[in-house]
């Protein structure tokens, strides 16, 4: 265990001094803040348009006024969550790759393996160190996002909202650890370092971008701008009744979506932050009960990824021909 902690501590210190890591995290923070600012500006533009419309109605002497757009502060984080889904996973892969690659390039791996270290010290230490770093990053991102929602977005954040944010932060952390551990395992397995990175990137491309995109494409309601059922003026109950007759197609579509861990993370975070209309305003226990299957799969997937990295990172795989 001492070996493992030593490796983890060294990894933590290494990354604290790593300029690439700083650039990556700064970029992720910046885009999260930008998305809050853009979301807030979009809401203000909607409100201005609404006020103009109401003024026009009043001038025309119409008494019926439509409901004003309402700001749900945590919904301003939608863009930030989507950035974390896409870019956070990408950066987690790059850091996972980098942690193995640097030891191989510098020749420190041979030195490390010449010592009487335990079987899981290298992989376990690396993943533990990176997990600690990601925990710090998630805390930082959550703090910045909350401040941005209050200051830039002009929203009020309640104690319950902070609880929702804390739960979402836990899932963010699991999601990032999943990708980092996967990259550590794939890089260790690959004879050429660049192959390990590119294979991890292909997996990222498939599961983060392509599969969810196919699922979205196959959604009947995404075929027409504004939604097919809205365009045809179909009520929700009728919509569900019609779709029930296409359960097979919808099953395949949903199956594609849930085969991606990104969708699990997205559904969880959108539910807890009230981004998904169905869960907006629901209490945390109600959302938790509905989201439990996704929470279990995300946790199990992360544990599996960590185990994979530990099993794949052996003396033999690490000492294979280098690029």
């Amino acid at each position, binding site marked *: 265990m001492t070996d493992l902690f030593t490796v983890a501590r060294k990894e933590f210190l290494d990354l604290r001094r790593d300029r690439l890591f700083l650039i990556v995290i700064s970029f992720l923070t910046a885009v999260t803040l*930008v998305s809050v600012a853009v979301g807030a500006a979009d809401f203000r533009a909607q409100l201005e348009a609404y006020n103009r419309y109401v003024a026009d109605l009043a001038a025309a002497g119409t008494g019926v006024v439509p409901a004003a757009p309402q700001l749900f502060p945590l919904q301003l984080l939608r863009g930030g969550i989507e950035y974390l889904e896409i870019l956070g996973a990408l950066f987690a892969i790059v850091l996972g790759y980098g942690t193995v690659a640097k030891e191989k390039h510098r020749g420190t791996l041979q030195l490390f393996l010449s010592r009487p270290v335990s079987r899981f010290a290298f992989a376990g230490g690396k993943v533990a160190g990176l997990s600690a770093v990601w925990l710090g990053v998630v805390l930082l991102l959550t703090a910045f996002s909350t401040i941005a929602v209050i200051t830039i977005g002009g929203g009020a954040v309640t104690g319950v909202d902070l609880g929702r944010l804390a739960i979402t932060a836990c899932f963010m952390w699991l999601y990032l650890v999943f990708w980092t551990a996967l990259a550590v395992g794939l890089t260790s397995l690959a004879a050429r370092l660049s192959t390990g990175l590119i294979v991890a990137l292909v997996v990222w491309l498939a599961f983060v971008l392509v599969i969810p995109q196919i699922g979205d494409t196959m959604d009947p309601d995404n075929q027409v701008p504004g939604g*097919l059922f809205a365009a045809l003026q179909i009520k929700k109950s009728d919509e569900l009744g019609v779709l029930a007759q*296409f359960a097979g197609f919808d099953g395949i579509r949903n199956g594609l979506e849930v085969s991606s861990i990104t969708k699990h993370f997205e559904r969880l975070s959108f539910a807890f932050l009230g981004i998904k209309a169905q869960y907006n305003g629901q209490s945390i226990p109600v959302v938790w009960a509905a989201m439990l299957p996704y929470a279990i799969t995300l946790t199990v997937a992360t544990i599996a990824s960590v185990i994979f990295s530990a099993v794949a990172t052996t003396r033999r795989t690490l000492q294979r021909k280098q690029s």
Partner: protein
Amino acid sequence: MMNVFFASAQQEMLSVRRARIAHVLLAVFLGMVSVSSIIGWVTTTTVTSVYEKILAGGLTAAPNPFTGVPALYYARNSVIYVILIGALMAIVLGAQATLRDRKSATTSLILSRPVGTPVRLGGQLAGLGIVIFTVLAISMAINWAAISVITRAPLGTDATLRLLGFAACAWMLLMIFTIIGMLGGIFSKRETTALLVPFVVWSGLTFVVPQLGTAARPVALLNPVPILAPTGGPFDLLAAITAPLSITEQFKRAASILLQDPNVSGNPLSSVIVLIGFLLLATIVVTLVPRQKLRSALND
């Protein structure tokens, strides 16, 4: 000089042919573009069935939104695969091209000969351009055949020319990302950064820049149709500034018009000009790389 140019191009094509990972990426791209027509067809057929059920139930009197959609509608998903898979493939090919010389330390040997940097890099770029052209040609041929089978009639001259126009736009976009990858391979001190920086640039161009002007969420930008900017607030100004820089959105616009997507109208010329402008600029930048820079060693 031309000999060096052709030799560099030929060597680049040979290297891609030998690189297994390049094959994987090319296969993924070809596979996805090929199945995109089938995905489009299955979805359109299902949505038409959904509409017919709604109509039979007397729930709507609106016309079927898919009545009269052009045959090229089935190719619309290819647009997004060019931006997602194609662009990342192009970055990897570009970065590997310039990293290869640095890793094997052959740059000094090459530059000890009377070889100009623009000729060497231009040759490599030309080689990659031919590779990407070939991949796009194959994918368009597959698309053409798939759509012809789905619509039970060979695509006509107009549709075929439109498909070729789409392929030309895709080639320009992918060449821009190839150059970004090459520059990453030249200027980065580490192999990790050589791939990461172009990926960050790609994400900036694909998600961040369009989001500033359109308020679109990142995932919404993965739709094949370009996002329209909202009006009012700061968006009028932001959209005017960011629209020409959003090359992926410009590509989507040009592609949607060429593929006759009913949701997008207008003339694709302005978007094509933006793509050409970016490609020229990127080509000039890569050919102006200082000779000394090519010799720099990798830190890892």
